[in-house]
């Protein structure tokens, strides 16, 4: 059994003392930032990217992955206890979770969320392991044209499924692709848009970390500070009776199963991942429930379904990233950035060239999930205390880490200045209602897309029809076009807008 052997290798890697430590660090950090509203996994991972220079690739990626799924746990804790979702993916958990807390069932809600997430984490880890090989085998049949078409599909899918205004999101993608063009052209060696600044003349141009930190780290700080502080009601002392009753279990487990299945599927899709999964799961639970009127008044299914789904989605979104090198959301874009920093070319070859990294990462997800359940339930009180830390202590700390991080990238001040510039840009995006996540996806994929496009054209002697005469490439492009058309259909459009309005 290949799968068993591979997983054995994975667990050997993940269970080494060093990797266990970084997995623990990752999930703790993830929970921490999940609990703190206004600090998401994207900003945190961006903040930590410079520090991974000092680490090996495997522990670095294990830690970053831990932050992502750890944040899903942390986010649900605050959603349940204080009705403030720490992460966007726990928005729907707050609806019924908070009501449960008000009825004195906070402990049950938290336990349901944790156990549901753990179950979903186990299933989806297996799924990642099982699906990776066929995906990779398939991707080796891809030529330049297919890879280009696949990236187009990935980018389009990402905005179609997961953002507000479609046309503005498309603009942000193209803008990201353009920012990715500020570099030294790989094929001809000509520096582009460098303004004769030597700092902009390397292969990367404007550093990926600089953009992520500036837009997601600083941009969010400015936006947060621009809003008046809010008062919160905290249910810290009422967390008693963690264990759900038999009746709770009976009601929750089918929801967990449905959530896991739905989340796993949606996670793989471009633009999917935790956020979309949790929303879809909540609507599904509401549809299949015998008594839908209970929802919004503390229905346990309303916690179990979305929480399982967001964790499953968070993990299966690693599948396209690991096997094809294509990010489906901003966090995966950062993971790809992290791999590049560590000198690993993301793509289907990672599994064969770095099997220990690949399977170690997969296995670490399961280990990390176990840690989360074991550690977090007893620690809930402590996490909630953290919420009382005022923002005036928090944001200078974030700024300090970002500043030092951007300076140490290349040990010069240029990157710090660029980060400041992107902080401004990030705030402009925020004010104009332009979501920055698609920009990051475009930026990451830009150089790869250009290379594949140019090579494909070179091979076809300048014939653009190569993209539509090759069946696989044509199929992918047609799928991308269909996605856009479907979203523009009036009936679906109004449904979609409704869904995103719920999200706000």
């Amino acid at each position, binding site marked *: 059994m290949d799968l068993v052997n591979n997983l054995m290798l994975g667990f050997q890697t993940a269970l080494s003392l060093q990797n266990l430590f970084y997995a623990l660090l990752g999930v703790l950090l993830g929970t921490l930032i999940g609990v703190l509203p206004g600090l998401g996994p994207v900003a945190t991972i961006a903040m930590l990217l410079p520090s991974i220079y000092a680490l090996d690739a495997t522990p670095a990626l294990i830690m970053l992955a831990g932050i992502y799924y750890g944040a899903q746990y942390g986010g649900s804790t605050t959603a349940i206890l204080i009705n403030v979702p720490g992460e966007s993916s726990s928005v729907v958990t707050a609806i019924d979770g908070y009501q449960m807390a008000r009825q004195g069932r906070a402990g049950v809600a938290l336990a349901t969320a944790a156990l549901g997430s753990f179950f979903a984490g186990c299933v989806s880890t297996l799924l990642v392991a099982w699906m990776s090989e066929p995906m990779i085998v398939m991707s080796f049949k891809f030529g330049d044209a297919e890879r280009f078409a696949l990236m187009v599909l990935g980018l389009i899918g990402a905005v179609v499924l997961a953002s507000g205004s479609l046309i503005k999101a498309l603009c942000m993608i193209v803008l990201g692709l353009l920012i990715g063009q500020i570099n030294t052209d790989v094929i001809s060696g000509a520096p582009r*848009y460098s303004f004769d600044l030597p700092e902009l003349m390397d292969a990367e141009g404007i550093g990926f970390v600089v953009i992520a930190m500036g837009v997601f780290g600083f941009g969010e700080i400015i936006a947060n500070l621009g809003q008046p502080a809010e008062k919160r009601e905290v249910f810290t002392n009422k967390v008693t009776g963690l264990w759900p009753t038999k009746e709770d279990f009976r009601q929750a487990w089918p929801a967990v199963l449905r959530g896991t299945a739905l989340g796993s599927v949606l996670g793989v899709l471009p633009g999917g991942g935790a956020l979309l999964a949790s929303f879809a799961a909540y609507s599904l639970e509401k549809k299949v429930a015998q008594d839908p009127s209970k929802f919004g008044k503390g229905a346990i299914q309303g916690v179990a379904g979305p929480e399982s789904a967001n964790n499953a989605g968070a993990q299966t979104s690693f599948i396209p990233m690991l096997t094809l090198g294509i990010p489906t959301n901003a966090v995966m874009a950062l993971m790809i950035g992290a791999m590049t920093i560590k000198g690993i070319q993301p793509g289907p070859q990672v599994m064969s060239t770095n099997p220990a990294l690949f399977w170690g990462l997969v296995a670490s997800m399961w280990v990390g999930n176990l840690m989360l359940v074991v550690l977090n339930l007893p620690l809930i009180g402590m996490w909630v205390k953290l919420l009382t830390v005022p923002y*005036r*202590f928090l944001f200078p700390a974030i700024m300090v880490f970002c500043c030092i991080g951007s300076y*140490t990238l290349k040990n010069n001040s240029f990157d710090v200045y660029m980060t400041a510039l992107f*902080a401004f840009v990030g705030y*402009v995006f925020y*004010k104009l209602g332009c979501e920055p996540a698609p920009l990051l996806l475009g930026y990451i994929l830009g150089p790869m897309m250009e290379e594949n496009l*140019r090579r494909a054209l070179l091979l076809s002697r300048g014939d653009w029809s190569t993209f539509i005469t090759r069946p696989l490439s044509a199929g992918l492009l047609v799928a991308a076009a269909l996605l856009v058309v479907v979203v523009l259909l009036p009936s679906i459009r109004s449904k979609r807008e409704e869904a995103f309005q719920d999200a706000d």
Partner: protein
Amino acid sequence: MKIKSQKDFWSGLMFIATGIVFAVGALNYSFGSAAHPGPGYFPFGLGVLLALLGGVVLFKALTIEVEGGDRIGSIAWRPLIVVVGAVSLFGFALPRVGMVIALPLLIALASLAGDEFRWKDVLVNCVVLTLGCWLIFIVGLKLNIGLWPGP
């Protein structure tokens, strides 16, 4: 002509302008041909595409009615200027005066961005964060950052 959505109006203009700047900039690099695309080929196409898409956003902003006009709202000038300024100053100061001075400078200045400014808290922040950074980045990660003012 009336602006129906302020946010989209300005986003549209921003995308158009950026697209044109990139497309014009791409003219400096060899365009090549479809069979031999040069370094200017891809960015030129993207710049044009961005300007076109920006045009659609602008058009929608002028034609489709949006409830409330989608106003941009007040701009948080103070946090914006303070954060951008503090970060730039830090970048300038760190290689010159070292972490022990640059960090408290950054923290104190940044604290001005919030609504509340309490000397005691800022002082605590300065001490804790500077100490923490020294431990994490210089002692722990052994990064090459100057601690004190020096050459």
